[in-house]
Every structure is written in structure tokens, then in C-alpha cells.
């Protein structure tokens, strides 16, 4: 029952002023609604903006650099005299750091989520969940400090040949950074598995671990996959940790003990220097930005399809 119809339903024979709506009030409501609508469309505008500029600038870039070179050249030396435009080194950098991060964060985050959801007492859960949120709020540049000055030296204690700039340290730190996201989302998914399902398992004589792993986790697959996808997106998009601690040399390698540069770190590096508007260097950051967005989009879609497949039926 909207405000408009209230006047109409009581529309007695009385055409007297009392039940007529004030035209100004009516217009006022419409204007407010229009304003709020326009404001909401900013979300759409931002997406359009992002897609637009990435495509436009990348188009200019690809007028000067062939797509084949871009995708196959194993060197990215765009800032030097001998210019190579292969995106593979940057892609490798992003993939290596993200893989290290996920190899660490996925098991740790999932086990922590299972523990929080199925084993821990309510009090522990109420204390730990906010702490995880606090963890997620630490600025990324501070994590960069952590990677460069604390994690790498610690790793060098085990691996004396590890260079000061490498992808292993930042990778692990990125892992720590995304653990709160994975744990939080996975735990939410597990908590929403109905108690009746657990009771069914316990009534069969199953232990807590058996119930968690054989019943709860499979039932929560959809939400857990969503948590992993979020982790992947975060790992791909992480910038400062790598910029600070991985060295900024694009390096086409799959070895995490070497230094390297990710797509994001490259953008930062270029932005720190001189960036004449319209130059090839300027356009290159949009081209690699496009690659990054496509990668994130790919995994988001994959995740969406996986979630649809594992839809909870209860």
C-alpha cells in the first residue's frame, strides 16, 4: 500500500479538499525518487567507465603493438631502450605470487573455518570473528613492510640463497592477507547448513571430524567456492606487497624464489615515473589492466558456474 493509493481507496463522494493529494507533495516525492535513482546508477556508470577506458586505451595500445607480440614475447622491457612488449613476464608474476598465496591460504583458511564452525565454542567464535575483520583492515603497504623486512629475512634463514627480492615472501604474506576473507565466508557458509543435517550424521555415530568433512563441508560447497573465488580475486589484485618486496623487474619465470613483477606492481612502477598522457607507456598500463580485469572476470564466472552446480537444495 503506497502513499499514493491511500488517498484513492478512501475516495468517498466527498470531493472536498481533505482527501485530495497536495500536488506539491506528490512532485516532491517524485523528485526525491529520481535523485536517489540517479545516485544508484553511479554503480552502473562506474562499471561502464572502467570497461570503457580500458577498452579505448587498450585499442590505442594495440594499434602500435601487435597482439601476437603482446601475448607471446617473453620480455617486458617497455621502459628501456630495447622495447619488448610481451605480457608473459607480468602474467607469470601475478600467477606465481597468487599461487603461492592460495596454496597457503586455501588449506589454512578452510581448516580454520571448519574449526570455527564445528569445533569451537560460541565464545571463541564471537572473539575470533571480529579479530579476523581487524586483520583484514590492516593497510596493504604495511603488509609490504612485513614481507620485505620480516618474512624474507626469516625465509633466508632456511634458504640462504634466497635473494632479498623474491616472490615467495610476498606470496606468503598475500596468503595471510586473504585468510580472513576465506575463513569468514567459508565459515558463514558452513554455519548456514541446517542443524538437522548434522544431527542425522551424529545419530549415525559419526565423530565431529567425520560430520564436518563428510556432511557439512559438502553441503556448504557453494559458499566455500565463493570464498575461494574471492581469495583469488584479492590475490590477483594485490599491489603494494609485491611492489615493495618482490623487486620490480619483470621476469618471466615460474620459480617463486626469484624476483618478479606482477601486472599491478608494474602499473605502480610506471605511475611513479613520468607518464605523458597518450604515450605508449601510458597506454600500456591500461592494456595490462585489461588483462587483469579479464583474469578476474574469468574466475568470477567460473566461480558463479561452480556455485550454480553445487546449489544447496535444502
Amino acid at each position, binding site marked *: 500500500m503506497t502513499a499514493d493509493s491511500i488517498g484513492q481507496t478512501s475516495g468517498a463522494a466527498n470531493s472536498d479538499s481533505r482527501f485530495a493529494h497536495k500536488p506539491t507533495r506528490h512532485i516532491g516525492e517524485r523528485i526525491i525518487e529520481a535523485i536517489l535513482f540517479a545516485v544508484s546508477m553511479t554503480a552502473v556508470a562506474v562499471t561502464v567507465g572502467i570497461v570503457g577506458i580500458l577498452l579505448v586505451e587498450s585499442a590505442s595500445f594495440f594499434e602500435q603493438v601487435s597482439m601476437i607480440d603482446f601475448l607471446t614475447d617473453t620480455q617486458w622491457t617497455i621502459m628501456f631502450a630495447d622495447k619488448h612488449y610481451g605480457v608473459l613476464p607480468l602474467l607469470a608474476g601475478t600467477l606465481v605470487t597468487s599461487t603461492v598465496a592460495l596454496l597457503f591460504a586455501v588449506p589454512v583458511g578452510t581448516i580454520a573455518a571448519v574449526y570455527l564452525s564445528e569445533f569451537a565454542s*560460541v565464545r571463541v567464535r564471537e572473539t575470533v570473528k571480529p579479530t579476523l575483520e581487524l586483520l583484514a583492515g590492516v593497510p596493504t603497504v604495511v603488509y609490504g613492510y612485513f614481507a620485505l623486512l620480516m618474512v624474507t629475512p626469516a625465509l633466508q634463514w632456511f634458504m640462504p640463497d634466497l635473494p632479498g627480492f623474491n616472490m615467495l615472501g610476498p606470496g606468503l604474506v598475500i596468503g595471510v592477507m586473504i585468510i580472513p576473507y576465506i575463513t569468514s565466508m567459508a565459515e558463514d557458509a558452513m554455519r548456514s547448513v541446517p542443524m538437522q543435517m*548434522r*544431527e*542425522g550424521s551424529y545419530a*549415525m*555415530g559419526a*565423530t565431529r571430524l567425520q560430520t564436518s568433512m*563428510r556432511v557439512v563441508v*559438502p553441503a556448504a560447497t557453494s559458499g566455500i567456492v565463493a570464498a575461494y573465488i574471492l581469495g583469488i580475486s584479492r590475490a590477483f589484485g594485490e599491489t603494494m606487497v609485491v611492489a615493495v618486496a618482490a623487486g620490480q623487474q619483470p621476469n618471466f619465470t615460474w620459480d617463486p624464489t626469484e624476483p618478479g613483477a606482477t601486472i599491478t606492481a608494474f602499473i605502480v612502477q610506471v605511475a611513479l615515473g613520468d607518464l605523458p598522457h597518450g604515450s605508449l607507456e601510458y597506454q600500456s598500463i591500461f592494456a595490462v589492466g585489461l588483462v587483469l580485469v579479464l583474469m578476474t572476470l574469468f574466475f568470477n564466472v567460473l566461480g558463479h558456474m561452480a556455485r550454480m552446480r553445487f546449489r544447496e537444495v*535444502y
Partner: protein
Amino acid sequence: MVEKSTMDMSIRVEHKESSTEARALASLKAEAKALDFWYGENQALKSINMRIDEFRVTALIGPSGCGKSTYLRCFNRMHDLQDNTRYGGAILFQPDGVNILDRSVDPIEVRMRIGMVFQKPNPFPKSIFENVAYGLRVRGQNNRTEIADRVEQALREASIWDEVRERLDDMAFNLSGGQQQRLCIARALATEPELLLFDEPTSALDPNATANIEDLIHRLKEKVTILIVTHNMQQAARVSDYTAFMYLGELVEFGATRGVFTNPAKKQTEDYITGRYG
């Protein structure tokens, strides 16, 4: 008093052995002795004494909130899953004569010998086959042929084998409500429990499915002792050998079903049965 005579007739048809001799021959499977139970400060069960005879169906009836489900769940220590609950007294389980409520008894052990079927069917998010096999796997059984045999046997006992034999790998969720509940019964049967607890198993089902399951219970009792909670008095009359009437956490009356329904000893029982209160 038309009601009484219809019940009379159905009981006469269903239960052939109703003499006290038959009752004396039945051995004891479990016995509640001065059983108390507390949710926090609130005492939900008060000093219940009850025999559960082997290979018989014992029904628990009573108005909402009388504690029948609470009582049922004591038998497989389900209350252990919640904080702030406390048992008092004992439930002696035969042939061991052990008090299964005792702290030193591991609830998991209890649940491996006593099975439960819930009010709302709760199959796991697995295939039909894996649902039934779950209990076996949890017990460390890994032999594929063994498992397949036991699964088929359980599904037959639950009268659902013919309907699912062609699609054992289908997700259990795709079954109808009645089929899911029979699946849950098969699941409980696969591990050959000594006592099977039914918590209002047909309250979420349509009349056809209900009739199916009542038939099933009637057949199952030859192999398993059954304790069933039901809010439906007619079901209790149709299905059980003994009936216990509970009210506000106490056992008011207990006896052979026919006797309880045709000639209740307590006025409270009579009032409930004749529908004076629900």
C-alpha cells in the same frame, strides 16, 4: 463413544498377541530408571520409569511440550550436542546392563548401537547409495561389495529398493518427501541397530507415505526394537504394542496399547485420548 470401538476393531486386527503371557515372554531391551533431564535450570523430565521390550513397538504420546521428544533423545545421547543440559537417573541398555547416560559411556558408542529417524527427512547432500552407505563408511567399512550388499539389503528392508534400484547414484534430494524418509530409515537400518528411535516420522508426510511407513514399522519390529514418538494418537493405536502417555515431563500411564486406549487407568489419559485437550 464411537471412537473407542473403531480403535478397538483396528487394534484387534493389527495386534494378534495381546495376552499378558506374550508380554512376559518378551525380553527387556532397555529400561529407564528414575530418569530426569534438565535444560539449564528447567527440569524437562521428571523421574521416568519405563520398560522397553525387545522386538516390540513402544509409542510415546502426549500434548505438545510434554517431553516425549526430549525423552526419546536421551536414548541416543543427542542432548550431548547442546550446552547446558544434564541427565539424571539411568537408562539401562541390555544385554550389557550398562547405564548409557553415564559420563563414562561415550555417546558415539551409544549411537552406533541405537539409530534414529527424524521428523523431517534429513538426507545428506549425497547420492542415494552414499546416504545409506554413510553409516558403514563411518565405521571404517571399505569393502565395496560388502557395502553394496548391505545397502541393497537396507533399501529392501525399508521398502524402497524397487523405486531406487535404477538410480542409486542420483542425489537423494531428488526423491519425494515420503521416499526421502524411507531412505533415512534405510540409512539407519544399514548399520543393524539394536534399538531404533522414531521422532514423529510421518508428521511431515502425506497420508499415502504415512501408511507406507506404518506398514514398514510393523514389519521392522521383528528384527529391531522400536521406540516411536507420535503426536497422532491413531497412529500410536495402529502401530504400537505398548503406549506411554506423558504430560508435562512425567510418565502418566504406560501399558499395552489396547488397554491404554480402551480402558485408560488415569483420567488425564482418558481426557487426552478423547480429545479434551491437545
